[in-house]
């Protein structure tokens, strides 16, 4: 029964004709396995420019593996990834970063020994080019560059309303703020595609509301394309334009939130079926 529904949902997505036009990233028939464990099996989907795309699924469905494939941390054994219409060759994470893919992590991966400001400044690393000898001197070009980027970082700090914790080491911040700093750090990269891995995990209601607002604002104001993984279904359904559902490494549904909610395969995956 599962198989039939899978075919149908893919067919409807194709019928709408939005897979071909204007996609920023497309994943075609990607399979990833670690030894005998198949993490991802034959998954295809696309992310269009300017949309908020959610990737959902029960635990262990392969969502985070999917993000790791997208930003070059894992290399799939089969399938291709196309970025802006061109098939991407196998690449290292820093190459993906330089092409405009930024991400946040499920468990906060901030640079603990650095301040909020330095953490967000570190997101500008790829955009700063003064070499070692200018840096030794500091006065002149290196300082100019630092100030120029500081200004951009301060805009992000204003946007996220974290002015007060600018000089606080991030290790001392509460969890919700750490998540926010991590979003700021990803934004500092001025990415085209922002991957958010459970941006609201472990947050209380108010923090979730704030974070949702930030995600929508990033999408609307900066035009950043966003792919997010999230377990809070209310948030996912409200925020996202399209949703792809994974289960045991396979794609079981793909479409608008309403379509996905109506899909029998998704309901079965989340609620379980009697055998």
């Amino acid at each position, binding site marked *: 029964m599962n198989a039939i529904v899978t075919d149908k949902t893919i067919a409807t997505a194709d019928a709408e004709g939005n897979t071909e036009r204007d996609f920023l990233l497309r994943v075609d028939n990607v399979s990833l396995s670690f030894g005998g464990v198949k993490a991802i099996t034959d998954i295809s989907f696309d992310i269009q420019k300017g949309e908020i795309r959610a990737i959902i699924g029960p635990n262990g469905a392969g969502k985070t593996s999917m993000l790791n494939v997208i930003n070059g941390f894992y290399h799939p054994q089969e399938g291709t990834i196309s970025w802006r219409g061109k098939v991407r060759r196998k690449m290292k994470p820093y190459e993906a970063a330089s092409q405009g893919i930024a991400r946040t992590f499920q468990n906060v991966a901030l640079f603990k020994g650095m301040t909020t400001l330095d953490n967000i400044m570190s997101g500008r690393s790829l955009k700063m080019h003064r070499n070692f000898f200018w840096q030794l001197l500091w006065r002149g070009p290196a300082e100019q*560059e630092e100030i120029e980027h500081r200004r951009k970082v301060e805009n992000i700090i204003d946007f996220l309303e974290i002015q007060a914790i600018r000089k606080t080491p991030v290790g001392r911040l509460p969890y919700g703020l750490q998540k926010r700093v991590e979003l700021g750090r990803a934004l500092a990269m001025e990415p085209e595609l922002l991957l958010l891995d459970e941006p609201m995990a472990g947050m209380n209601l108010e923090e979730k509301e704030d974070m949702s607002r930030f995600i929508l604002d990033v999408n609307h104001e900066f035009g950043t394309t966003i792919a997010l993984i999230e377990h809070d279904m209310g948030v996912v359904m409200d925020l996202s334009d399209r949703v792809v559902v994974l289960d045991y490494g396979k794609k079981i549904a793909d479409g608008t939130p309403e379509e996905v909610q109506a899909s029998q395969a998704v309901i079965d995956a989340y609620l379980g079926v009697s055998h």
Partner: protein
Amino acid sequence: MFYREAGQFKTSYKSDQALMPILQDRMGLAAILMIAFVLIPAFANDFFLTSIMIPFLVFSLAAIGLNVLTGYCGQLSLGTGAFMGVGAYAAYKLTTIFPDANVILMVLVSGVFSAAIGAVFGLPSLRIKGLYLAVTTLAAQFFLEWCFIRIPWLYNYNASGAIEIPRREVFGVIVTGAEATPIARYFVVLGITVLIAFLMANVLRGRIGRSWMMIRDMDIAAELMGIRPLQTKLLAFAVSSFICGVAGAMMVFFWLNAAEPSSYSIRLSFQILFMVILGGLGSLSGAFMGAAFIWILPVILKFVPGILGFDIAAETVEHATFMIIGALIIFFLIVEPHGFARLWQIAKQKLRVWPFPY
């Protein structure tokens, strides 16, 4: 109360990200530099300069070098002594090949050789982390020490197997060799140490310093943000070894006058590592504090019984010094595992809010 930045407003990012944004810090640094450049040369005797200040500055510089690698970039290294040795032997060879060249320049250039060798031994750091990396740098330590003993070309085929520093003049002042005055040596060592410390402070607060700290704190996230791990780590190894090499060259040129391979043994590596850990990983001022604790305190302790009027045998004093220093190291690491730099930070915070607890 005494240390309060109230009223010191910043109106530009330039002044906000200055090296020392707080006036009291700047005054403190000015006072220290004043003491180092004016008061000590004016009043100190030869013993104080040669046995305390010159080695202290040399070790501080070496500690800064190791701090770049271990404290800022998070790569544990036990090869410091060997990298210092490379600097010493390179400077020795350079000054014998070019006897008329400026010896201070040769000392600085010798750092380039140790930087190159440091970068080569840094290659495993891409694959190996933590203590395992320390073991591979141990290989550097033993291999290079072997080279210092077995390659006679390095010490110009001296019968003794040691390098002896010839007399060299810079602008008419003798700075190396047995005839050089302590005061001339002191100024050279102080100048180089302050210059390198200042330049490193600049690097560490900029893009490159941040990229090192990114690797240290979370290497996966750093990579996903566009940091190339190999280049970044190798740069840290090279810069660290450069500084250690210069320190090693200064050690023999301006302090010991002669050195044998055992001067750059694993013992020296550990000594520098302890200075860094005790002073505070990832802190430049910590490097100075750690060097002061490990080098100056034992020297002072040796004189305490004499001053107090006790007549104790020299060996007993030596042993007692060892025990006291050991106990103090344990004490300070229990009180504050992050070293003197953190203790000083806490003290500053207390001074800020004094007389209130917070």
